[in-house]
């Protein structure tokens, strides 16, 4: 019995030490990526290429999900607001939910599972097939040539995708409430405009999505670069990218929201 407790404590301790070690490794890797980002900006074509994979290819899922989330928000918001006779405020509800929270957060979650996992799998496979080592032996730094462009492409795509998501959501809400249900078009927009503030709502949402973009792509490239060079290693790393970045997005969202909207409104 005593032995089992001791070994239990020991295994917990081992896991804690392991994750601290991993966190340190990830931070060092992150610094390394930032330090070696010069190439990405000198040869912006590399980033543009990756923008296609992380941005353009995520566009469809972002547009469709944004539209549906906005439609559901419109429908649910209308049902609730109608009870208090203030269904004209539905535009405010849709816009504020999207711009402040759902836009950045849901877009980031979708981005993590669409583009983040692809980045991890790609880098992990390049490592497993010795492509990264081959590159290093050709005197080309794989962090500068492979990792950094993917990182920056993700960081650039994320805020754009979040903005597209919010706009699609607002038009989705417009479609359901104004066109199908018949809420007054003028009050949909005007209530929204008087409630949504550029600096507090839109800019803060934008800042949030920038943070999420950095977090998701940093996790994705780290997991890919440190994946064990086997089939199971790469698939495990891909799963870890999605799980870790989802948790980090939600945690980070709470922290950022607490900082941004504390004491206001």
């Amino acid at each position, binding site marked *: 019995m005593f032995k089992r407790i001791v070994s239990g404590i020991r295994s917990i301790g081992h896991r804690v030490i392991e994750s601290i070690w991993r966190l340190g490794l990830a931070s060092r890797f992150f610094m390394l990526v930032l330090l070696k980002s010069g190439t990405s900006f000198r040869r912006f074509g590399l980033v543009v290429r990756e923008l296609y994979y992380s941005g353009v290819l995520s566009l469809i899922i972002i547009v469709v999900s944004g539209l549906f989330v906005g439609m559901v928000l419109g429908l649910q918001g209308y049902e609730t607001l109608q009870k208090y006779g203030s269904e004209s405020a539905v535009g405010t509800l849709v816009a504020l939910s999207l711009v402040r929270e759902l836009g950045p957060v849901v877009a980031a979650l979708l981005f993590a599972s669409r583009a983040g996992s692809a980045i991890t799998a790609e880098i992990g*496979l*390049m490592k497993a*097939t*010795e*492509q990264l080592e*081959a*590159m*290093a*032996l050709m*005197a080309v730094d794989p962090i500068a040539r492979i990792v950094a462009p993917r990182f920056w492409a993700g960081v650039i795509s994320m805020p754009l995708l979040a903005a597209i998501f919010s706009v699609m959501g607002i038009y989705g809400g417009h479609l359901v409430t104004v066109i199908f249900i018949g809420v007054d078009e003028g009050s949909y927009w005007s209530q929204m405009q008087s409630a949504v503030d550029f600096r507090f709502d839109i800019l803060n949402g934008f800042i949030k999505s920038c943070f999420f973009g950095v977090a998701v792509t940093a996790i994705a490239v780290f997991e890919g670069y440190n994946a064990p060079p086997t089939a199971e290693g790469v698939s495990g790393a891909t799963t870890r990218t999605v799980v870790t970045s989802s948790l980090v997005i939600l945690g980070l969202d709470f922290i950022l929201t607490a900082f941004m909207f504390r004491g206001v409104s």
Partner: protein
Amino acid sequence: MSPKTLIEVNDLNFSYGTRAILKGIDMSMSRGQVIAIMGGSGSGKTTLLRLISGTLRPTSGHVRFAGEVVHELDRDALFSLRRKMGMLFQFGALFTDLSVFDNVAFQMREHTALPESMIRDLVLMKLHAVGLRGAQHLMPAELSGGMARRVALARSIALDPMLIMYDEPFTGLDPISLTVIGNLIRRLTDVLGMTSIVVTHDVQESLKIVDYVYFIADGVIAAEGTPQQVRDSVAPFVHQFVHGEEDGPVPFHYPAPTYQQDLDLDPKGMPVV
């Protein structure tokens, strides 16, 4: 160190933690030679290549490449040294997102400021040397194993290196591709005046093309010599390896308790019930 010597390996030791992989290796390789490094699987041959290319740092001893001690160089000097080296990986390690043409052009585009028209000519020349000029637009996924390795070979000679290292170039090839790769290694070495190190356990194919052979076993050089010396060798290890005999100094059985003990047999051979 004679001026013809390109690589000098001096009392090289390397260990992963407490497990010693290489124990006091001494080698000397001249320009224009094809050198084979042979040994059983897991004998530290690939580790030796990584030490020469500076991917790993030796525990003690050193590798001297063109007069410079590899592991004492800083990052920039190491990278400029690596431009003088090429490496052919076991399965080619072609960049899967680039076409054959772009794979061969990769180093030229990264390291030189050549105009695109000149890069095109150079790439076609390199691809012609390996007989794959017609495959320039294919993607690596469309190539057979032998073709992928030839493209990788064209890629590694892109900047006319002084040294090419081949990691198991013959593994998994049909007899025709095998001969093609073997002859390419010999011919390119002679034509370009470079040095080739072939790490392999394919004895027959490599003895045909190499100038000198090192045998590595248990982290030390067990034997060395020209192909003719190796074929005639009576040293038990070399004889077993060259002729591919099942048992010899390299035993068939992994160290284990006696067979009788493991099967619970009593000394007389009757099962204990």
